[in-house]
């Protein structure tokens, strides 16, 4: 035999029983797994982005609402050694570093008649607590 036209044109290949149904279900389950993976990755990315935004908002809020945010923070950061102690007085901060004490009130030059004695008592208490520390 020499001529191709003399041969009946037919599909010579056989496949196992139920092969094409099996192929379809295998491919579809792979596709579903892939889709799930993409969906999970999308949720993860969104969660990370949301967490980053929340963290940023919290940081901005802290920065805005932190008392005395007008440049004194920089001062505090410079002085901020581990041994520094902050004394709070209302909204004000005085920094006491390495045992050094700063007078919160300049008694010598102030007009004592106009001093609020309650404030003086408060500072006195605070100073005595500091004495105990050192």
């Amino acid at each position, binding site marked *: 035999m*020499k001529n191709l036209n003399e041969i009946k044109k037919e*599909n*010579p*290949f*056989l*496949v196992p029983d139920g*092969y094409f149904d099996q192929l379809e279900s*295998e*491919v579809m389950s792979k*596709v579903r797994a892939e889709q799930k993976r993409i969906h999970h990755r999308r949720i993860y990315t969104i969660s990370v982005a949301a967490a980053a935004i929340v963290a940023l908002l919290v940081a901005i809020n802290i920065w805005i609402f932190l008392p005395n945010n007008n440049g004194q923070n920089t001062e505090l950061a410079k002085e901020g050694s581990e041994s520094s102690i902050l004394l709070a007085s209302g909204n004000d901060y005085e920094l006491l570093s390495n045992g050094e004490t700063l007078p919160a009130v300049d008694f010598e030059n102030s007009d004592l008649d106009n001093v609020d004695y309650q404030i003086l008592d408060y500072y006195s208490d605070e100073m005595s607590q500091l004495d105990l520390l050192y």
Partner: protein
Amino acid sequence: MEPIKDQDILDLFGQEKTKEQGFNLLVKKYKQEIYYSIRHLVFSHEDANDISQNVLIKIWKHLDQFRGDAGLKTWIKKICVNESLTFLERKKKMLNIIDEEGYNDYITKTVAEDRFLSSDKIQQLLEQAIQLLPEKQRAVFTLRYYDEMPYEEMTKIFGGSEGGLKASYHFAVQKVEEFLSKH
């Protein structure tokens, strides 16, 4: 049951909610064509099965990039041909067959031992002759002979001119007939 239209597949695939349904229709419509066009090129059922699955997953991943320049069927066949040719190149390197005689022996043995091949002796001989063609010529031959694909459509798969593809098919037919006349 009504035949599945390519446009319905593409419309469903184009929407996130019905993407999977559209792809399922594509699998139903094209699974056999995909498998057999690959099988004609790589011959063994096991290899054809692996490549068919890869091709279908590739289609799933890239169908949204289908621009409709060629028909959906041609686009799918192009993926089948490319994947099969890549596979054959790798396999040839893996088998480390350097001379033509060694390759002929390997093909003869493979065809003779295949469980999933027609028991018709003439069909077996024809398949053996096809498997001995160079890979790209085999692809041209099987698409033209079994699928009766027009040359114009084939240029979208292989590139080049219709004349070049006609010549390639003509040489393939000559080789196949020569082999048949000798056996």
